[in-house]
């Protein structure tokens, strides 16, 4: 295990960013945290989580796929892919770190493989950070995630004085090797972990019961009458999907700039009325079906396809950001209720 005094964290950031682009969570003028490239003077956000998840760095909201150059009646096709540079993300929480596993199964391993995503994943080094102060909206524990023991290429912890680092992968080793760090005892972060676990034991959502969900539950849950009442309040905005670290749907659109057309993909939301709209119409005609789709996908369909892995990580972003406070916890509790 390695460590650095908190007072010297800027040195560490400088050292990393001298070699690669370093993303750290920073508060903007409105106090909203987001991962942005480190530059001297930037302070790491003290928020538990960024507004948008760290998935943006692998799967950005908008990304050009292919360009078409127009000259009269001639069209030239131009590959929009550009070579990505290696980068480091610092301060990813345990929940977001899990979300990468979930996205990998869709974009990295499953066919067709997403070359844009793969390149970014390959060229990134993820430094996670344990959560010293989990909040009431956190329920990562329900998915077997321990905020005291975050994954990633490097895991990090902090106490009052220092940051502690442990490399989990070769990429992680390589990153730490070149940095101005001191050695620390292997149990140096144990006190921090213990404190964190004391708090997680008090979290109000720690006992969230997922036993009703998982692979093979489609028949049982699909026609539950509760979907109708739960979805009644849903406004049909895309907030939950856009702040979600595991939502992965996108749409492909063209921008016709006159002499050039850009074909790009952009996040889409299953909560939208025009999601996967076809010439015959909308396969999920009302908000009930759309709402059900989102939660069934997270809790049943995805686990069906991926050995029981839920595609929710309990980060709690949707609990905080839903305009009308309808969220996956309410769905789990209502649908999962003994009847």
């Amino acid at each position, binding site marked *: 295990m390695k460590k650095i005094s908190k007072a010297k964290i800027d040195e560490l950031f400088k050292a990393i960013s001298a070699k690669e682009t370093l993303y750290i969570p920073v508060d903007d003028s409105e106090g909203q945290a987001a991962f942005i490239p480190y530059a001297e003077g930037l302070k790491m956000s003290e928020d538990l989580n960024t*507004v948008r998840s760290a998935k943006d760095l692998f799967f950005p909201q908008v990304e050009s796929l292919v360009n078409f150059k127009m000259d009269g009646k001639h069209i030239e096709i131009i590959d929009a892919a550009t070579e990505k540079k290696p980068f480091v993300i610092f301060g990813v929480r345990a929940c977001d770190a899990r979300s990468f596993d979930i996205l990998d199964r869709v974009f990295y391993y499953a066919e067709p493989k997403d070359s844009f995503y793969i390149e970014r994943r390959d060229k990134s080094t993820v430094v996670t950070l344990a959560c010293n102060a*989990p*909040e009431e909206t956190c329920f990562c524990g329900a998915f077997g995630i321990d905020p005291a023991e975050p994954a990633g290429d490097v895991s990090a912890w902090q106490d009052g004085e220092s940051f502690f680092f442990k490399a989990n992968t070769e990429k992680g080793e390589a990153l730490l090797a070149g940095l101005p760090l001191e050695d620390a005892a292997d149990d140096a972060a144990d006190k921090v972990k213990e404190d964190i676990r004391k708090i997680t034991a008090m979290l*109000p*959502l720690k006992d969230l019961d997922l036993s009703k969900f998982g692979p093979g539950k489609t028949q049982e849950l699909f026609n539950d009458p509760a979907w109708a009442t739960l979805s009644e309040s849903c406004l049909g905005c895309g*907030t939950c999907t*856009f702040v979600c670290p595991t939502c992965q749907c996108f749409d492909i*659109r063209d921008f016709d700039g006159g002499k050039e057309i850009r074909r*790009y993909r952009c996040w889409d939301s299953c909560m939208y009325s025009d999601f996967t709209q076809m010439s015959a119409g909308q396969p999920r005609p009302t908000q009930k079906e759309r709402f059900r789709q989102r939660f069934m996908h997270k809790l049943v369909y995805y686990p069906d396809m991926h050995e029981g892995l839920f595609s929710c990580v309990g980060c709690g972003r949707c609990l905080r950001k839903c305009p009308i406070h309808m969220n996956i916890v*309410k769905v789990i509790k209502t649908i999962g209720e003994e009847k």
Partner: protein
Amino acid sequence: MQAVIKKKAIELLESGTVNRVLGWKAGEFFYDLTPAVFTTPEQIEKDFVYSVFSGANMSKYLIDESKKEGKVAAFIKPCDGYSFVQLQKEHRIVRENIYAVGLACDGMCDMREIREAGIKGVTSVEEDGETLKIGTIYGEKTMAKKDALLERCVHCKSKKVVDCDEMIGENGEENRDCGRFDEVEKLEAMSPDERFAFWRSQLSRCIRCNACREVCPACSCVKCVFDNPNSGIAQKAAASDFEENNFHIIRAFHVAGRCTDCGECSRVCPEHIPLHLLNRKFIKDMNELYGFYQAGADFESKPPVMNYTTGDAEPSIVYARGGDK
């Protein structure tokens, strides 16, 4: 207040005046109330909550609810009331199917303000006079209620419920000196470069989640132009700076004169973009150029953008207004 409202809701259901009640349903943590339709007194007893977190403007739900079988009871706060009337003017809700109970209101709280005050892990909030007693997993905290108010409540423009079948509490008055344009004026006083920088820093955070649009009672279009592939401007993400600007300018323009300034757009923005400042700019301009106008304050008036006088100011007035050159 909650007890009186619950009693009224149950009474309306039991007397058969209505067969449904639109209200706020308890969540996990006291603050996360969800709009819901209650059909039995038992549900109301169990889950109906009216608290300082009942800020959500319920009027938009009435578009669908008022078209269903039977009558629905709705509890209308003053700011909801303007939207309620505006939607009636636009023929979007069927008034006969609604039993409207007006609520006197002295301000709603914003969980975001509490969190930004550094109070984390909140599990309960209790109103104790002017103070909020906040239970958290890190121990009990207190906060003055006035510091936790929603922006729209800090600058409350009216405590008057324009249209209801009965009131709970005393109906209040409009307050035109509520200072709600102060922020707009500050921006107007900046240089164009500063304003541009300000709005870029705000709008560049937009993730086009459409929360502002979906929550907005004026944005009640069957299909939004931005979702309609035939409109020529449909977009699913703000794929460039222009599209970020475009969405918010056009949205503000489309609701200009119809926007009641309920502030929901800013309340729900996950990126905390002060979208109400766009709408308020239009409202302020219309007030100054064409006379005071409050959307939803009456049933007859025409919104200023759908009206004119022969002596209106010329567009060139803009060159002489707002900030330096």
